């Protein structure tokens, strides 16, 4: 393969990773937009969801990569896995909000963030102590199809990732821009107090944000498993931090920002790993995180500078 070929191939890989980070980043952005809270629990909602997705597929009798499905069976089993994972992740998000964050509404300072760190730790260790520290072979019923497009190879699983991500993001966009609850969300994000006075049920908006964000994290988690063919209790931290970086890069609070930021982080990860060295990828990504916050804290699409108190 030529050098440009390698780079183009890394662009394809980066788009797949980026789609996953974008889905995960939306969860940070939705919650931040409404509560001004960085939800560290999101990291491990993602991780737990990847196990739920695994169990859902195993429930259908699929284990490992040996059993390949096609046609309706494939679509049905993947559809089932996505629906179950997203619903379960959404419910976990709602429970977290209801139990640990709603009582803290109105308590300023660092209390909310510290609580989400605690919740994240609990999720992490529940999986570690019950499932164990090993990494699990992820069930994957996708047949291996490859298409040679010029210098790059595109796999079926990548096409699937792009399609699912596009559908989910389009759905989210329609929900936020067209529905009544979506309008209430946008109003609450701008000014929670005013929205409350205009009759918006802010608690319901917050629950919706947690449900949607966590459900998208669930989709990202299943994508992670299908893409890498494994899952483990530690996947939440790295992927979560990258998605958080993506949300910040795009402008935290902005949904299109999270999407673009996710794609950019995916590309930076694969191209940075190719051009510099994989062991420095994390340093590159966290440096971007720090540099964006320091020099363009509003990110690419953010509306307000986050320096206000």
């Amino acid at each position, binding site marked *: 393969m030529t050098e440009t070929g390698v780079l183009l191939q890394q662009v394809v890989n980066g788009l797949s990773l980026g789609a996953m980070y974008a889905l995960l980043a939306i969860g940070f952005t939705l919650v931040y937009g409404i509560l001004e809270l960085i939800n560290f629990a999101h990291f491990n909602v993602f991780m737990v969801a990847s196990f739920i997705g695994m169990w859902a597929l195993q429930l259908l009798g699929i284990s490992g990569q040996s059993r390949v499905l096609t046609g309706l069976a494939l679509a049905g089993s993947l559809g089932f896995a996505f629906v179950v994972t997203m619903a379960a992740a959404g419910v976990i998000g709602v429970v977290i909000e209801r139990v640990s964050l709603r009582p803290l509404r109105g308590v300023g300072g660092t209390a909310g963030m510290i609580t989400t760190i605690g*919740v994240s730790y609990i999720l992490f260790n529940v999986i570690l102590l019950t499932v164990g520290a090993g990494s699990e072979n992820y069930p994957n019923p996708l047949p291996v199809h490859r298409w040679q497009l010029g210098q790059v190879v595109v796999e079926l699983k990548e096409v699937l990732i792009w399609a699912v991500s596009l559908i989910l993001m389009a759905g989210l966009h329609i929900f936020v821009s067209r529905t009544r609850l979506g309008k209430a969300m946008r109003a609450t994000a701008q000014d929670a107090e005013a929205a409350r006075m205009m009759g918006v049920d802010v608690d319901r908006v917050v629950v919706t944000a947690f449900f949607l964000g966590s459900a998208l994290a669930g989709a990202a988690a299943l994508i992670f498993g299908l893409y890498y063919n494994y899952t483990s209790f530690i996947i939440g931290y790295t992927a979560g931090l990258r998605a958080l970086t993506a949300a910040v890069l795009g402008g935290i609070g902005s949904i299109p920002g999270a999407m673009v930021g996710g794609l950019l982080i995916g590309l930076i990860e694969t191209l940075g790993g190719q051009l510099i060295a994989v062991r420095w990828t994390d340093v590159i990504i966290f440096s971007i995180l720090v540099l964006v916050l*320091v020099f363009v804290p509003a990110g690419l699409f953010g509306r307000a500078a986050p320096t206000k108190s």
Partner: protein
Amino acid sequence: MAELEESPASAPARPMSGSRLRVATLPLVARIPPRVRSRLAVGLLALAALLFPLLHANDADIDSAANALAFAALALGLNIVVGFAGLLDLGYAAFFAIGAYAYGAAASFQLQPEWSSFWEPFHWLDLVARLPGPAGGDVVHFQVSFWLMLPISAALAALFGVLFGAPTLRLKGDYLAIVTLGFGEIVPIVARNMPAVTNGAMGLNGVAAPQLFGYSFGISATPYYYVGVGLVALLIVTSLRLKESRIGRAWMAIREDEIAAAAMGVNRVRYKLLAFAIGAAFAGATGTFYVAKLQTATPEMFMFPVSVMVLVMIVFGGIGSVWGVVVGALLLQMLQSWFLEDLSQWLHGLGRLIDVAWLRHVELASSIELIFGVILVVMMLYRRQGLIPATRPMPALSLDQQAAQIQRGGFATLPVISPQPSPETGSLLAISGLTVSFGGLVALREVGLVVPRHGVVAVIGPNGSGKSTLFNAVTGLVTPDRGSVVMAGREIVGLPPHRVLECGIARTFQNLRLFPNLTVLENVMIGMHARLASGAAGALLRLPRTRREEEEARERALAILALFGNRLVPRAEHLASSLSYANRRRTEIARALASNPTLLLLDEPTAGMNPAETLELAEQIKSLNNSGLTIVLIEHKLDVVVSLADQVVVLDHGEKIAEGRPETVRNDEEVIRAYLGRSAAFA
């Protein structure tokens, strides 16, 4: 506050029969005065810490205790950043790593550059040794003393604290948390990827043990334990002294309300950096101690879980509470190394007894992180102040203390204010062409205003007319697009809020910005920030000058509180958040007066007060003016305006629509229209 309890204002309030009963029934301990009691407690604690290795000669336990002390030291450092200054630092272990690798590199066989004459002076100072190298030529062996490296590591970590902090500290708190998380990730990765200095993931080997008077500490735990005790004691004293000082008050003001802190003269960036640097220095010194004790260092020792563990310790013990975080750290370490082990053993026994397989093999120690997570959530939900809260609850006031007397005729005694009545006349504050816009909304348009020395100017206008924006622009909280503000002959547009205060302008806020979790007295003393001079050295060493300054500041603050009769004095040690609305307004005025201003900006000082209280406060404002203070006030109550102001300025939609004597303005048609609508003006 022993002095206050004996003051005549509060003494008669104590219900005699109740206190007699208490003295008779409570045990002997309660009869010892609190100050003596706390000294006794500290003495006993110190004695127990010193005797522990002698009474319990188990090397493994002493070793655990030494590790626990290292974490107590880290908790004390993070407490300065999170607890005092309110900055959530999620990458605190990075500074621990920096201190650890600094000593690791300076006292191991890792770095061995070739010998050259450059190293002669260091050799002479005994910092390096000359060894025959493997490749023939001589190499340098670093052997810097542990005792020398302790302060050097602290300084190095502090330097990194400033480097990391400087660009990020203007960010909002939660963004700062992400940036620190990023730095916390970067440092161990860099350590892993630079094997030349750190030996990468394999870890440093053969870090030299400390030596004292030629005796090497070796691998026995006891000497490390005593160094740990000394380190923690030093850091406790440092924390306590800083907390009680001007610096500590400035940190807590930033934590409670950054904007109000700036308006009261606190240089936010400087004090945040100071908190970051001192917190980092604690971690740096602790890192050196820890690596000397383990004699190795790997990147895994400094990852995110370590930062979280220290955070759990301070949340558990009590954020902002010095003794609390030490207790939190020690308890959690004990839980980890002793209690969970014992409990597991006990469960294994139980499992064998009742023949349950999983009970025989359960290892509770591996669930420590789960316990950490539960602690974080439970503490935040049910006990945010931690095991040992930073502030003690104050007893409720007696009826006598609560019954305030209305004072008429303004302040009786004003010597404490001493606003240097200046012989000069003419204008003190001159505003011209001031324009402020927020996005498309023009909040102020070409506003001009002259405040004569010793005058009282009232700014009135409907809600949203730009009155508070005018104050914000003058005090540097918003930056005007155009225009000039000249205070006593000096242009102040563009100055940060704390510099504006230093020019002699103090303000109150319409929506009250007291520091809610600080006492009334502390609130007022923060007002004095700019007029006091003590720095960190003075606070740490308790220099006579600093102590005198603190004593005078406290007396002056009490005298200012006493201006308001018995409304604030009995509550001096109460939290500002416990005050009534009217008393919060009074405390804000007292805080502003404490800065010794020449110009006082009062934003709706009588809002929320009843007519009697309003009259009382109006007369007090008048007497402030009579004593030489120049006053600008925003006020809706027109009788207050008429009784106080020499001159009235009317704003509407950000523009000045009228100006003049109160009675003239009152009849101005445009003013009536602005307030009451078009039909009222033409009725």
